[in-house]
């Protein structure tokens, strides 16, 4: 159990770092395109904007998730000296709590749960359509980006469906995020 929890902390931190690099990669292209008078760039920029928003929310949720495990005392046993890191982690934790409060407030709890269950399937199908279209039209970067998100959505959904408190399903979700980040960073790099 301790080893599995430690694995979750490592994968969780890995996912957060990957998310931040991914965000930087996407925003770099976003601002690069902004400076050009390329026709029809708004749609791509919208996609990048929403994807970035999703990643920011994901960072908050993951930080909250990792912090919860940290609060269980594992990390403080292993890394008691890294006070600055823990301060930043707790800062993110507060921000993530705020984001979640904003997200949930005014809505019945059942709705976010349904959204959480349904959204990965819907987004997975949409990303799959984008992937097929980009393969047909030979749009290399969009193809990699959408395939990465399709794989992540499917793994994410399987992790949620099989959740039931089994820790290995949490690991599937974290691995899905890491896999998506690796594909996006490798292919969207400029």
């Amino acid at each position: 159990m301790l080893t599995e929890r430690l694995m979750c902390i490592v994968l969780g931190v890995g996912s957060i770092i990957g998310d931040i690099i991914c965000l930087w990669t996407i925003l770099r292209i976003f601002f690069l395109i902004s400076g050009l008078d390329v026709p029809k760039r708004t749609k791509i920029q919208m996609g990048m904007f929403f994807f970035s928003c999703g990643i920011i929310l994901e960072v908050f949720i993951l930080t909250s998730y990792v912090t919860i495990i940290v609060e269980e005392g594992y990390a403080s046993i292993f890394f008691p000296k890294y006070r600055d890191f823990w301060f930043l982690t707790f800062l993110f934790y507060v921000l993530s709590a705020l984001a979640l409060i904003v997200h949930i407030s005014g809505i019945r709890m059942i709705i976010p749960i349904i959204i959480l269950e349904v959204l990965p399937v819907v987004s997975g199908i949409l990303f799959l359509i984008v992937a097929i279209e980009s393969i047909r039209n030979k749009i290399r970067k969009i193809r990699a980006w959408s395939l990465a998100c399709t794989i992540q959505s499917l793994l994410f959904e399987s992790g949620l469906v099989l959740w039931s408190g089994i820790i290995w399903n949490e690991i599937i979700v974290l691995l899905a995020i890491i896999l998506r980040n690796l594909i996006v960073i490798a292919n969207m790099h400029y």
Partner: protein
Amino acid sequence: MSSTHRSRIGILLNILEAINKRDYAIITEIIREANIPHERLLPILERLIERGYIRYIKRDNRRYYMLTPDGYRLMQELRRLKHLIEDLGLSL
């Protein structure tokens, strides 16, 4: 080559590639290759000369344009940018 809806970067790349195609390019060749009218091309060429991306020599009352090393690097960078834009399903 599509001449409609070209971005400024696309036009610039076409001009640099037109000059690079030959060791020395005269203005009519650049106009033909880059598909750009004379009156629009001249200020761009002047700006490129000012910034040190191209230079020219005069021979037989004609200007022969050529890329400088900085101009060549700019062209390479713009080609990279063009690939990125095309990989995103857009066009320069």
